């Protein structure tokens, strides 16, 4: 049989026309793109599963948290009073301090700046820290301030700021109602020391004044009260042991009740070097009444570290050339 060309062409023409019409109908329609979404689908479903698992965990934690942890009102708040002043390493020091404090439940950070007004650096840092805080400021009078060349031991530092913190506790604090308003512990924490988390657990049960060893202070590996029969009998220190309380600021905590019961107890900014702590504690407690912590004062849970002043030699040289660090960048 011979293939008629005419029929073939007609057939071809009809089939092509139908195909074209079909394609035109499909144009603009939603396409089924699921095959391209497959790897994305897989990721989404995996993450959804992950999210669900974490949500389950969270629910479990919420359920177990309350019975395991003491309800908020009965865990005494630790008020940590930290004097701070503006210098290069301030932001770094406060950052790592806040990272430690975040691990302590019921902690209230009272940060007192040595400044006539609140600085934006500290305002921002406190807001981002995630801690409960109170931001205060008071400027040290000029004659009591250390000048640039002075060695750090020349004048006691932070007395005015700590007093301001105490004043806030006594006068301005809006305490929760009831008997719990007097529950609490006050600790004076400098911003360059190193604190372990256990320290705060130890101090929480302070009735009057509790004490413990401090590492790397007083020219020794550690300084500590010597405990015999559960009571402090003397102090192991390498520097002026004849002081009424040869302790470091980081080595004691006072109960809020004691602070409120002694409204005149404060730090004497004119006290000779090393007597700052004594000026506060003298009117408040006697050595016999001190409560030893940290395993009868045998463990070091806080270290009197100091941070080096960063060298800015090149900075000064570059500033002169106009190539210094951008001052808009907060360091």
């Amino acid at each position, binding site marked *: 049989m011979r293939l008629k060309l005419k029929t073939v062409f007609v057939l071809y023409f009809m089939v092509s026309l139908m195909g074209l019409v079909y394609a035109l109908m499909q144009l603009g329609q939603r396409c089924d793109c699921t095959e391209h979404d497959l790897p994305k689908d897989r990721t989404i479903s995996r993450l959804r*599963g992950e999210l669900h698992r974490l949500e389950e965990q969270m629910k479990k934690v919420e359920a177990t948290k309350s019975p395991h942890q003491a309800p908020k009102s009965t865990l005494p708040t630790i008020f940590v009073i930290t004097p701070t002043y503006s210098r290069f390493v301030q932001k770094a020091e406060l950052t790592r301090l806040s990272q430690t404090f975040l*691990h302590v439940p019921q902690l209230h950070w009272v940060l007192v700046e040595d400044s006539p007004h609140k600085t934006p650096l500290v305002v921002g840092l406190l807001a981002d820290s995630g801690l409960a805080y109170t931001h205060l400021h008071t400027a040290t009078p000029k004659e009591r301030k250390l000048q640039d060349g002075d060695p750090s031991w020349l004048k006691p530092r932070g007395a005015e700021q700590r007093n301001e913190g105490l004043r806030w506790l006594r006068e301005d604090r809006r305490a929760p109602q009831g008997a719990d308003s007097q529950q609490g512990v006050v600790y004076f924490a400098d911003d360059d020391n190193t604190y*372990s988390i256990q320290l705060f657990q130890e101090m929480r049960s302070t009735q009057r004044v509790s004490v413990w060893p401090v590492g790397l202070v007083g020219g020794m590996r550690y300084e500590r009260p010597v405990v015999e029969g559960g009571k402090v009998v003397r102090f192991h220190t390498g520097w002026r042991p004849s002081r009424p309380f040869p302790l470091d600021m980081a080595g004691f905590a006072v109960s809020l009740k004691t602070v409120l019961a002694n409204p005149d107890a404060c730090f004497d900014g004119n006290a000779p070097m090393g007597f700052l702590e004594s000026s506060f504690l003298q009117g408040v407690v006697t050595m016999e009444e001190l409560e030893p912590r940290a395993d009868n004062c045998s463990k070091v849970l806080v270290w009197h570290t100091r941070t080096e002043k960063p060298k800015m030699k090149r900075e000064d040289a570059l500033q002169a050339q106009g190539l210094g660090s951008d001052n808009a*960048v907060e360091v």
Partner: protein
Amino acid sequence: MVTNRDFVTLLLIALPWSLLIWHLSNGNHTDLYWKGTPDRRNRSRPASGDPSSPREGCTPWGRAAAAGAGGGIVEAVRTEYVYSRPPPWSAALAPLYVITATFQRAVQKAELTRMANTFLHVANLHWVVIEDARNTSALVRRLLKATGLNYTHLHLETPRVLRMTGSYPRGGIQKNLGLRWLRLTMGEAPPGVVYFADDDNVYSLQLFEEMRSTTMVSVWPVGFIAGRKYESPKINAQGKVCGWVTGFAPNRPFAIDMAGFAVNLKLLIRKSEVVFKLRDVKSGYQETNLLSALVSLSDLEPKADNCTKVLVWHTRTERPTLVNEGQRGFSNPEVEV
């Protein structure tokens, strides 16, 4: 009878159709395939309440445990969140391997304590601590165990000949041991980011989240380094690193501090021969030696808001004067400080 003309006709007719069919089968290969297997598509979308996918919970810890990581391996799922414990391990986040070389001195315990306090806030962090000592010390062992972090505790004493060399960058051989451990333990292509953290710096928590998305090497500014307020990579208009803002030897190919960069683990494993140079290292060139073998300048990923924020500070802790120790010498050596 089929003539030549018919043959040609048939060929001309068949040619475009065969082209079309060939094109379809090549280009939309999967289209045809998936359309034909609807079951497969549905199976890829398990019910959202199904937590059973076993691979998700798997981490490379099984191997790590065997490599002598001590008791530091934390189970993948924590059912109770307590203050001062790390966040639950999440398979959705890239793990961070922080390599810290440490050595015994008075402030060691304090430094490691506050570093641990920082790391306890970071999810999926594995701390590789390498002591410059003949044996692991009880102090560090106890400290690491008490933190509850994921850790690996190694030790390697710097050979005397290296210690005496002036050009030896401190901690170099310990960091190399950390790299070696990672390469031996982590397998072929594990997810993860490696960061070298010295024990006296200050790290903000945001830094760790910034480095998690590193695909090759990411960089950011570091505060208080090279005699300046901060050192930073220079970023051009396209968002790429084009130079360095630094006060010390700005001609270095990578004028950056150890704390200013993080490397993707896969890159380190792929280039398994790259380690820190230990001899004849020019001052400040330790980072350059490592990075130039790993990436080129254009591969660097700027973090910290296009390198405009300082999230890590190169602080140094003063050496405590222990003068009264010598005079009286009655500090009980058994008390750990």
